[in-house]
């Protein structure tokens, strides 16, 4: 991604919009159909940012479409505002405000709950439009007489009628809409949104305020919906109450899925297919109302067999044909071992960590799951700069202990102090921003992104803080980002695999990336939950080497079952058993501790 990239997508979009009035009519598109396609395409841009990029499936976009449309239509028809563009803007702002409020409620839950709640809220808007507000909205009749745009420059005035003149008005707005959306999805915010879609838990764990970013996507989607709603009224000269129905939201979802999610252009393609087939089936084939059945069947088949829609399918074909050529090249040799000569990453800057003395203190830490006592009254201290090992049999409560230290779960009782601050009950995101994070026992990667993109997500949290609305910023211009990502790549030995998708990595490489994700947030205190789990002996040696190379300037706590490795690495070791601290001391002390031998080795005395 260079700073002076030719804006190819934008240019092609512009050319396409210029060519459409000449290309489409011979194919049987009426100007009004093309105009509707643009409105639905614009509506869908925002929805695609919400669903395709952020992974939030809303069935309630009609609420914002209708709000924007009715506000614009009302102020235009009641002579409150005479300028159509101004009215559209006001409608869009109204939809945006509604989006903030609705988002704050709907985003309290995820997945199917989110889908259900958005359906219900949108339905409420329909009823509000229909009854309590019918005095203003016309209820079931809608608002007729919405004027078309008129521009006056001096004595010269330009009135935009229906048909192709309207097309040019809509095309300009669509073009602006797509240019802005492309900037957004390429911005750091766009990168975080995709990370949230892939793995919301890890996105929060590396220090992004996931809730606020989701709300951002939701509000962007409502802004686009509001603008599109206003345009619908202007286009038709009439604001229909149908804008608020579940059918509207459903049609948007289907068009986006047909065209392809996560592309921004999917909704436009989907709307083209939808509206063309509707006209074609109704008039040419005389199918009457059965057109919707045909479209429903097409939709179900696409979801079953071509989930990424038409654009996704074409992309897959394209990569498949290119992949063939790649396969003919000789297969890549085994990945290189972790490069130990790479410059070590500096530890977190924002944190005033003590250079000596305790950096992390836990007092009386207890976690109870119902009747099960996972951790009981653990006292634990780690000094700054130390490498502390934790061992214990399976079920000893090691992972629960880590989950409490990183504030993934709150302790039932007890306190945690990190760098002089009481962090008990803080969010995982805030704790990571303070410079405490962990790598997971089970890989938590952004599985649809490449290695470099994964590390970039983590580094962005470190360099931008937990939330920033730099919607139009080019990530390449963030000082230090490229360096931080490249250094981490080199440290975990994945430089040559930087542009490989995570799904194509070998297990050992994924484990190293898992550590790299934690590392790229430049933590002052790094917790590693079984970094050696499942590795071959050779990979173990490499990873131990890696751990040694990253400990400079930071504190580390490592859980592992590989005692030889831990005895080699750690200065102090804590042994957990049945949720309690069994022993703590230097590796030599632990090796010779009778209780530990009893617990671990079953009393077998060995040399």
């Amino acid at each position, binding site marked *: 991604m260079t700073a002076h990239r030719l804006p190819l997508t934008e240019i092609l979009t512009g050319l396409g919009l210029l060519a459409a009035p000449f290309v489409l009519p011979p194919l049987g598109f009426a100007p009004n159909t093309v105009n509707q396609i643009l409105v639905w395409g614009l509506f869908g841009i925002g929805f695609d940012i919400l669903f395709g990029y952020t992974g939030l499936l809303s069935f309630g976009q009609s609420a914002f479409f209708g709000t924007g449309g009715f506000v614009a239509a009302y102020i235009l028809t009641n002579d409150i505002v005479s300028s159509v563009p101004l009215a559209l803007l006001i409608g869009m702002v109204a939809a945006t405000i509604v989006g903030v409020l609705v988002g704050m409620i709907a985003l309290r839950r995820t997945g199917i709950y989110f889908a259900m709640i958005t359906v219900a809220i949108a339905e409420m808007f329909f009823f509000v439009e229909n009854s309590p507000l019918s005095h203003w909205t016309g209820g079931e009749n809608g608002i007729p007489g919405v004027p078309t745009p008129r521009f006056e420059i001096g004595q010269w005035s330009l009135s935009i009628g229906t048909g192709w003149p309207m097309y040019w008005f809509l095309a300009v707005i669509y073009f602006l809409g797509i240019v802005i959306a492309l900037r957004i999805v390429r911005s750091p915010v766009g990168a975080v949104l995709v990370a949230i879609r892939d793995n919301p838990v890890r996105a929060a764990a590396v220090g992004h305020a996931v809730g606020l970013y989701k709300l951002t996507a939701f509000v962007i989607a409502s802004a686009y919906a509001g603008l599109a709603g206003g345009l619908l009224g202007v286009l038709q000269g009439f604001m229909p109450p149908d804008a608020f129905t579940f059918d509207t939201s459903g049609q948007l979802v289907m068009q986006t899925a047909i065209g392809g999610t996560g592309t921004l252009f999917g909704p436009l393609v989907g709307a083209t297919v939808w509206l063309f087939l509707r006209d074609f089936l109704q008039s040419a084939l005389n199918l009457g109302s059965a057109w919707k*059945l045909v*479209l429903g069947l097409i939709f179900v088949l696409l*979801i079953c067999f071509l989930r990424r829609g038409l654009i996704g399918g074409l992309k897959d074909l394209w990569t498949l044909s290119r992949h063939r050529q790649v396969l003919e090249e000789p297969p890549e040799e085994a990945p290189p071992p972790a490069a130990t000569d790479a410059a070590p990453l500096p530890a977190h800057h924002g944190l005033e960590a003590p250079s000596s003395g305790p950096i992390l203190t836990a007092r009386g830490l207890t976690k109870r799951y119902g009747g099960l006592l996972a951790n009981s009254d653990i006292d634990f201290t780690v000094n700054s700069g130390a490498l502390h090992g934790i061992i214990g049999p399976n079920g000893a409560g090691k992972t629960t202990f880590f989950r409490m230290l990183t504030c993934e779960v709150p302790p039932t009782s007890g306190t945690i102090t990190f760098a002089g601050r009481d962090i008990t009950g803080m969010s995982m995101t805030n704790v990571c921003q303070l410079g405490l994070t962990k790598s997971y026992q089970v890989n938590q990667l952004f599985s649809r992104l490449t290695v470099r993109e994964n590390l970039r997500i983590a580094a962005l949290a470190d360099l931008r803080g937990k939330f920033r609305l730099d919607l139009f910023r080019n990530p390449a211009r963030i000082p230090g980002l490229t360096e931080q990502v490249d250094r981490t790549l080199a440290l975990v030995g994945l430089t040559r695999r930087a542009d490989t998708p995570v799904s194509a990595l070998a297990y050992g490489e994924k484990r190293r990336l898992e550590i790299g994700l934690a590392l790229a947030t430049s933590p002052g205190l790094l917790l590693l939950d079984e970094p050696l789990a499942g590795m071959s002996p050779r990979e173990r040696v490499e990873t131990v080497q890696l751990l040694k190379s990253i400990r400079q300037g930071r504190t580390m706590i490592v859980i592992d079952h590989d005692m030889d490795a831990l005895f080699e690495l750690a200065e102090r070791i804590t042994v957990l058993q049945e949720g309690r601290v069994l022993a703590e001391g230097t590796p030599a002390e632990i090796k010779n501790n009778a209780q530990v031998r009893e617990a671990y080795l079953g009393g077998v005395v060995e040399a």
Partner: protein
Amino acid sequence: MNWSNLVAQMFNGLVLGALLALISSGLTIIYGTLGVLNLAHGAMFMIGGYAGYLAFEATGSYPIAVVAGAALVMVLGILIERVIVRHFYGRPAEDQILVTFGLGIVFVELVRLGFGSLSRSVPPPSWAQGVTSLGFTVYPTYRLVVVGIVAVALLILYLVLYRTRLGMIVRAGIEDSVMVDSLGINVYRVFMVVFGIGAMAAGFAGIVNAPVASLTPDVGESIMIETFVVVVIGGVGSFPGAILGGLIAGQILSLTSIVDPGYSYVMLFAAMTIVLLVRPRGLLGSRSRD
């Protein structure tokens, strides 16, 4: 407004609430067991109504209509699970939602193709026509019968869920489906049966409701949205929650309509919002599912 009007509205709320409770139970046990939100659930309700209508037209018998409506939807539910939904267990929740949403549209449009958009109606059985005196007010007999029938259906569903081996597996699956699978129980067969039973609950409600409200192909859509609200209020995946949520929703809808029918849905969604703000898991939702 007088007392008899209020009581009559509360009875209306009870009828609606009982139906919503039954439909929501179907939705919620499917979600609880399979993890799939079935957006074709409203279509199941509608098809139950039409299947019952056909059976009634053919035989003139109300019991046959109810049994035929429910049975057909159960078979349809099993078919949907076997042919389509089964292939979506390993796919993201969004794909499951999309495919069932699409199926719902296909069913609605198929029925529209077959029956047209004109509304159809099934008369109440002869023994349940007219009104019954409740002492202080008179009330349509069939609506009282609906409450009774739905109560029996819910009781049977309760017995199946809490007193049979299948129910034990279903409830265990709601807690931890991986564990159930690893115990050597064929969860896929259970899934199929549960999808059938869940769809049947909606189809049964559809035919029982047909004499109360007329049938159109779109009758399922608003019911399904109300069902979502019920399930969110009661707690997704919770059978008792679906019943409680259904009864609450029924009362909100009918009591508000005494004041102004235009506000009844607004109040319903306001109630859902309050529950979400105060208790995001729903009134009886368990912590384990999210």
